[in-house]
């Protein structure tokens, strides 16, 4: 690839170091080396993707069981209450409070740490980033493999904890101490409880993310191809760079918190155990002197940047798809780059807005309110730029574009409803209600997930050489959009009415709140659904739950589409089926190990669509200038980074 390194030096890090020289009598590595313990970034990306999709399905399943308990408390769960394994958990077929807590905690953990982050950062980042910057692979391929296996180990540990006598962790995905410290202490072996295993699994997941982040940042800094200057990098790569830094710098404090909580549980220390703590009416036998506030600080120091880890890859995917399908350059590319950097920076300074009601000092809470409001500025810049990019374009509404377009209002709703929560006095009222649930789910579920679906539809032809079915894509998109809103929109109303998020009966126990009128008696809808009786707030639980189950059904076309298109989908007729401009569309389909057949060169910026005077409506980065077909001078192409 590079003249400097083509001399036969060491091949310690590149496993297939000699491939370049023996291309003609090259023989395939064994199956397990190629697909299981692979060091190829594309295979690892796909491994990440499939594992993450499975975990997303598991998290979704947990949620559906919870939604049953919320909508129909005290009634046996249909279908699964007959499964022999499941009967152990349910009490007379009904969801118990313990089970609800367990599923709630694991739903959050699985969706965030095992589902979305690995899919967004692990899968898309791994597959697309090296291709877009013209690198043959990640900078440290074996480290890349290690980070996948560390992730899988963490995931398996987390999943296995369901089968322990204590069950999985049940102190919420935030695992707040002292509740998390004192849960399940009565089980014979403290080590083999879900709560302890959660911490252990987190240590593996954190290690995986750290290794991944080191790898990504190094790759982006050092492995950009000739001509790929900083400002010629696609926005996706920028987002990955910032995401990498967020993971790198935000995860270690959570590791600290996990280690300390592990010490609290296993060695009896009192990091997060205050003096004089009573648990279940019994004095908790520990030295005391610790502070639960400390745990929350360390947790949310990760927790908030983590939110941007969830959303940035999705914004970036949308930012790739929208210029491609509007056939216009990304509006304000530079502004977006700076906005994403400011966003990354500020995201480290806002964490305590999750902690207004913890009793931390008012001085510090004022600071966090201010910065939280500030951080909405770069977020709005990003979304606005993407929105303006669509203005006046001749838009192709294919499936990836549908998802990408839907992402904008969905993320907008999620983001804007977060603004009130930034103020501590409003937060006092809304904290821990369904309003908060609706707010961050709008960001993550119809927001990030739609972005990720768009990415799957968009890059699927590159991975398989076949397009996904448009019909099934539409069948997937429209119901998903409808039911996503069906789930989360009622939650805003319920939350403002005061429904608490952790009630396993969906708030039925609080009659005053539950009985508030939503639609008056005799209104049109009440006549249809409730024989003319007033529809109360608690009835909205059923709307959300039914939407949730319908959403599950709406994913069936996607699953069919995914597997069917792999073998039966329409074959693409070129390496660049979407007429896109970035470098990943210049390599063969699917890209071989080592990615590019000849050394890639970036001749121009990433979004040169509809350039005036050009023959076609797109001018790819990898095409030499038609005016002067010979390659530009060396200095001109040399990356001007490094500053």
């Amino acid at each position, binding site marked *: 690839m590079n003249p400097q390194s083509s001399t036969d030096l060491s091949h310690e890090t590149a496993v297939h170091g000699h491939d370049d020289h023996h291309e003609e009598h090259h023989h395939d590595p064994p199956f397990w080396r190629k697909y299981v313990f692979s060091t190829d970034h594309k295979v690892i990306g796909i491994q990440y993707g499939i594992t993450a999709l499975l975990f997303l399905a598991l998290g979704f399943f947990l949620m559906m069981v919870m939604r049953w308990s919320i909508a129909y408390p005290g009634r046996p769960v249909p279908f699964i209450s007959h499964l022999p394994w499941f009967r152990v958990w349910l009490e007379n077929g009904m969801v118990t409070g313990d089970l609800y807590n367990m599923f709630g905690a694991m739903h959050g953990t699985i969706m965030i740490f095992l589902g979305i982050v690995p899919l967004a950062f692990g899968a898309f980042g791994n597959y697309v980033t090296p291709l877009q910057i013209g690198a043959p692979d990640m900078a440290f391929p074996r480290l890349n493999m290690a980070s996948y296996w560390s992730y899988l180990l963490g995931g398996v540990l987390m999943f296995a904890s369901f089968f322990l006598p204590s069950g999985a962790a049940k102190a919420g995905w935030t695992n707040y101490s002292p509740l998390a410290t004192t849960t399940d202490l009565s089980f014979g072996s403290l080590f083999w409880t879900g709560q302890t295993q959660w911490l252990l699994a987190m240590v593996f997941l954190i290690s995986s993310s750290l290794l991944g982040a080191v790898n990504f940042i190094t790759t982006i800094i050092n492995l950009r191809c000739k001509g790929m200057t900083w400002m010629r990098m696609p926005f996706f790569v920028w987002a990955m760079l910032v995401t990498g830094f967020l993971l790198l*710098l935000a995860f270690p*404090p959570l590791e600290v918190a996990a280690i300390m909580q592990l010490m609290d549980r296993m060695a009896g220390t009192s990091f997060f155990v205050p003096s004089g703590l009573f648990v279940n009416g019994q004095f908790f036998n520990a030295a005391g002197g610790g502070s639960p506030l400390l745990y929350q*600080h360390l947790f949310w120091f990760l927790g908030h940047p983590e939110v941007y880890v969830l959303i940035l890859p999705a914004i970036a995917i949308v930012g790739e798809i929208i210029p491609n399908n509007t056939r216009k350059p990304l509006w304000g590319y530079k502004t977006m780059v700076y906005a994403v950097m400011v966003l990354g920076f500020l995201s480290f*300074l806002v964490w305590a807005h999750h902690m207004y009601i913890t009793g931390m*000092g*008012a001085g*510090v809470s004022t600071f966090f309110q201010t910065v939280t409001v500030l951080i909405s500025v770069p977020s709005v810049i990003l979304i606005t730029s993407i929105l303006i990019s669509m203005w006046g374009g001749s838009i192709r509404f294919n499936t990836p574009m549908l998802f990408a377009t839907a992402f904008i209002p969905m993320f907008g709703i999620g983001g804007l409803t977060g603004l009130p929560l930034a103020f501590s006095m409003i937060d006092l009222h809304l904290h821990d209600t369904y309003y908060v649930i609706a707010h961050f789910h709008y960001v993550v579920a119809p927001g990030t997930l739609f972005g990720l679906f768009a990415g799957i539809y968009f890059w699927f032809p590159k991975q398989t050489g076949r397009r996904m079915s448009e019909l099934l894509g539409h069948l997937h998109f429209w119901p998903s959009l409808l039911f996503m809103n069906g789930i989360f929109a009622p939650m805003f109303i319920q939350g403002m009415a005061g429904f608490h998020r952790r009630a396993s009966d969906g708030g039925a126990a609080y009659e005053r709140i539950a009985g508030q009128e939503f639609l008056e008696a005799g209104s049109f809808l009440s006549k249809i659904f409730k024989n003319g009786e007033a529809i109360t707030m608690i009835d909205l639980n059923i709307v959300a739950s039914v939407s949730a189950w319908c959403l599950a059904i709406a994913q069936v076309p996607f699953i069919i589409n995914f597997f069917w298109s792999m073998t039966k989908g329409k074959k693409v007729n070129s390496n660049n089926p979407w007429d896109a401009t970035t470098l990943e569309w210049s390599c063969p389909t699917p890209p071989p190990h080592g990615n590019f057949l000849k050394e890639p060169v970036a001749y121009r910026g990433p979004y040169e669509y509809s350039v005036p005077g050009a023959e076609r409506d797109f001018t790819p980065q990898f095409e030499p200038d038609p005016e002067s077909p010979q390659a530009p001078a060396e200095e001109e192409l040399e990356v001007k980074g*490094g*500053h």
Partner: protein
Amino acid sequence: MSEFTPAESRKHVKAYMAVFLALIVGTFVTVAVAMIPWLDLGEPGKSFLDYSVGLLIAIVKASLVALIFMHLNHEKGMIYKIMLFTMCFAFVMMFLIVFSWWNPIQEAFTSH
């Protein structure tokens, strides 16, 4: 540093030895400030001044290690940028976490 001549290496080793000496002296001074009575600064016992001197010496020692041993004195811009952001976030984390003990409203009520 692809060219590494013996003369250059002697220069390097000289710098390393000087830092070595400085680090040892720094360690002695820190312990002396903490333990020897007539070096007790400020108020009797361990006071703010003692802590400050101890931490200041530690920071100087750490800077020497980072600059000379870890070659940060002539490193590339990218590394500086990365470490600058890291240090910034580490300090922000420490100060904001510690400042959450500070409650001006409570102080206003309890001071009367």
